[in-house]
């Protein structure tokens, strides 16, 4: 890629999502999470530690907000002043929303976080200088900073625990920002396999670690460009459109019957994760 080529064809190289006249070509990875199926059991979070080499920081650093859980379960109560939490809790798995117009990307002074052609918000570790601007700008608090050099910190990966580290995923050192990647190492393998067979990745061929472990199957993941993908069908049925900051359904009555929504959509982040509202029975 010469610089002349880059400048002349700038609009081809620049990812201008979300945009209707520039649709994603082959892949647009997206997720949907059914909050009525999610039980808040935390299996997704532990699976993410196992897959993505997340450090266990210990009590003191956890207290300082230094925990590294790329997917965490947020737990809310909706008591409304009643004596008991008698309709249970509201659990919400929170992870990087892989925003199409990510607030973290625009503020990075070195371009360490940017958008990939298949719609991921990527983090380039060896470009990151640790300004943490992205962290400050993320409305979902989904970015985690390496305040310490965890590989050399006592009791994080003591021998032989370091043998469990996933060789497909970089072990991050001090001063680097990190976050959920939609298990990009799995996506890369799937895309490569598909390419060598001259096809696209099939729906269900690749799963994220959180999706694979989830005991209730609350998480769906796939390619929004693929019309046969479950995740795309879910988005369509729920009338949630990727490239809108206000969904057309919200102005109509059908919104009251549909569960799909995106968190803080009004901030024009265009998240790639759709949630389905939790349900509660009114007869009891």
């Amino acid at each position, binding site marked *: 890629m010469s610089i002349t080529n880059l400048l002349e064809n700038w609009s081809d190289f620049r990812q201008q999502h979300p945009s209707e006249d520039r649709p994603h070509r082959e892949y647009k990875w997206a997720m949907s999470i059914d909050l*009525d199926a999610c*039980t808040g*059991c*935390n*299996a997704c*979070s*532990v*699976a993410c*530690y*196992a*897959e993505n080499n997340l450090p*266990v*920081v*210990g*009590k*003191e650093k*956890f207290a300082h907000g230094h*925990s590294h*859980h790329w997917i*965490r379960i947020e*737990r*809310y*109560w909706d008591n409304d002043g009643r*004596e*008991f*939490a*008698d309709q*249970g*809790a*509201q*659990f919400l798995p929170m992870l990087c929303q892989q925003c199409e117009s990510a607030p973290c990307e625009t503020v990075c002074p070195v371009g360490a976080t940017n958008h990939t052609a298949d719609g991921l918000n990527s983090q380039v570790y060896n470009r990151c200088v640790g300004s943490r601007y992205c962290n400050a700008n993320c409305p979902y608090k989904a970015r985690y900073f390496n305040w310490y050099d965890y590989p050399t910190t*006592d*009791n994080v990966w*003591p*021998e*032989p*625990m370091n043998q*469990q580290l996933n*060789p497909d995923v970089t072990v991050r050192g001090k001063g680097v920002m990190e976050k959920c990647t939609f298990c990009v190492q799995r996506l890369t393998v799937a895309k490569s396999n598909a390419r060598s067979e001259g096809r696209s990745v099939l729906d269900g061929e690749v799963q994220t670690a959180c999706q*694979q*472990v*989830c*005991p*209730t*199957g609350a998480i769906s993941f796939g390619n929004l460009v693929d019309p046969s993908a479950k995740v795309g069908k879910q988005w369509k*049925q*729920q009338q949630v459109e990727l490239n809108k900051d206000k969904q057309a359904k919200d102005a109509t009555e059908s919104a009251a*019957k*549909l*569960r799909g929504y995106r*968190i803080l959509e009004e901030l024009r982040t265009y998240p790639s994760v759709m*949630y389905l*509202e*939790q*349900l*509660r*029975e*009114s*007869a*009891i």
Partner: protein
Amino acid sequence: MIENSFNRRGFLKVLGWGGATVALSGCGNTSVEDGKEFVTSYVQTADYIIPSIGTYFNSTCAQCNAGCGIMGRVREGRVLKLEGNPKSPINNGKMCGLGQAGVQAHYNPDRIREPLLRNGDKGEAITWEKALALINEKVGGVKAENVAFLTGGVSGHVKALLKNYLDALGSGHHYVYEAVAPSVVRVANKKAYGVEMPRLRLDKAKVIVSFGADFLGAWISPVHFSQQYARFRKADKGERGVLVQVESKMTLTGANADRWLAIRPGTEGILALGLINALAAAGRSVPGDVVAAVKEYTVDRVSKDTGVSAEHIGKLAALLKERSPSLIIAGSAVEGYAHGSQNATAIALLNQVLGNVGKTVEAPSSVPFPQMAPTPGNRFALQALNDNMAQDKVKVLFSYGANPVFTAPASMKLKENLKKVPFKVAFAHYMDETAVEADLVLPLNSALEDWATAMPEYIAEGAQLSIQQPLMEKLYPGTLGMGDILLALLKQRRPDEYKGYEDFYSYLRSAMVSIKGVLGGANEDDDTFWDTALSRGVVKLVGAPVNISSNASAKGLVVPAPFVEDSAYPLHLIPAVSASMRDGRNANEPWLQESPDPLTTIVWDSWVEMHPKTAAKLGIVEGDIVEVASKSGAIKAQVYVFTGIHPDVISVPLGYGHEAMGRYAKGVGVNAFKILDPIFDKETGELAMHETRVKVTKAGQRVVIVKDEGPAGGNQMGRKIAVRMSSSKVNLSEEV
């Protein structure tokens, strides 16, 4: 540094004799560096192994007794991650966080690496030959009746070998102990349904009323139940199942209920009988003798006794009448009282009146090989062993898969009684509280390096034998599998019978191959059968159908009136069984310590759950350190205030407060087992876990609780983050 850091000096001091392990084994784990082993090039590897590409091998999870099938991702000879085995009908490819942490049990830095023999207060490394010869000498020197074997729940070929070893010694003293098993409910089920563990079909039920059964978190087979729960919530026909949870302390399952009903502790049976009465009054056909037996349980009285509002009792009865079939589940909260059996029987009766037996409460199938069938553990077993030790009837004690010094209440004086046993052998992974007390500690292979078979107590469909196979080479040459140890011990006693087996693997293979006909391999040659079994990880068995009965009867069923308050100890203590910590055996796996408790979001410590009303009465705020004192002892922990608990109750999670075990477990939190009062279920003699009364006093300090929840404490502050809507508005059958 992690706060409860591994301080070697302190570690040695408390552990007493763990020194030799640390000193002798060093930190390396391969013998390649010191030239004892050759490095074989990957050029000569099996066809299917490609460097840098993971290969999956099936096995069985050993983190709890549910027996989920797992597949381990193995790369360059190391196991990296576990996934669920899609071929296992128990978990269908899914897993839980506890299961995920299995790799941390395997790669744990605090594992014991060679046999240790007590020398004063130190442990000296000895060879396996010496260790096994010593056992032979010790068991040979005492009467068979003075040999006791304490284990957790056992099944499969290890159980068969264990029984053979005990038979060879001439002793039948096998104590099967589980600290948090549903042991009272099993007995009540046996009476009511004719089977201890019926198959619960959550997916077929339209309404589930769970009396304190945390089936999504830590009860029996949570991954299996979670999948059924998903189908219950989103049925093919689109009708969403309704979950009502009745309990005094909110569990993970309670947090997912459409209605969580806070009930006065111990009055679950009263509510069940009240619901039968309300159903009869609403026109549901109920046998005459049952109607007569429950007629006293009017809505007003039941509401007064249980604290559940008359409105909710009425709505619940109406729901159960309208939507059928339903499923009523008696969980661990029900059985935790001196009248636990009666509570469980009342709930079984409600199931029967609703006609659920045979519909959502199904018969399991029998297990064709009783010698391998699961022997589930209970709490009574430890009681019996403890009594025998106190009376000097135990001369040689083996302990495997249990940590009684940690899980026994202080009132049992188990640690003192243990000292009366002249020779104690602990088969262990860590220098846990029991291993520290032992005379001989035998280090076990991790579950990911060992051969075994398992038959879970709760099998989802048919009968099955799950295979546990090594997912990689042993990390330490000095550890051995339980099967191998038992085989070696049996060779001492019955050499003619067992000398043909070089190791447990050859025993297991030949035992399986010899019955391949009934294991579905009648038309296959031995190698094909064995390879197929290993690659599937699960062998289906054909079990005979078992009849389920509706024997629950109102006759003789008396549920006592609610508690009389005790002014000296005004609060009820509920020791909570959390999905990660359970009875504490996995506490040294740091992912579990750092995985926030789902309800409180607390990490790396114990806590005392308290209702805001109770806290206000006692002048307590979040983070206050309090002393929780029962008649049997006291513990100190931080208070977490929330509305998922009855005001008469406080709750402390179990599994924390290890004094040994390893760097991630030791000194984290407090051990709630210790202060449980010695009160027992009247019918089964099981320790009544929820009977302990306590008083709570401020200890003067206050801490900032380390938790994941933000300062808003679970309030969304009007933002649309986690959204909830009424199920009547949605047509789930239209959804994808």
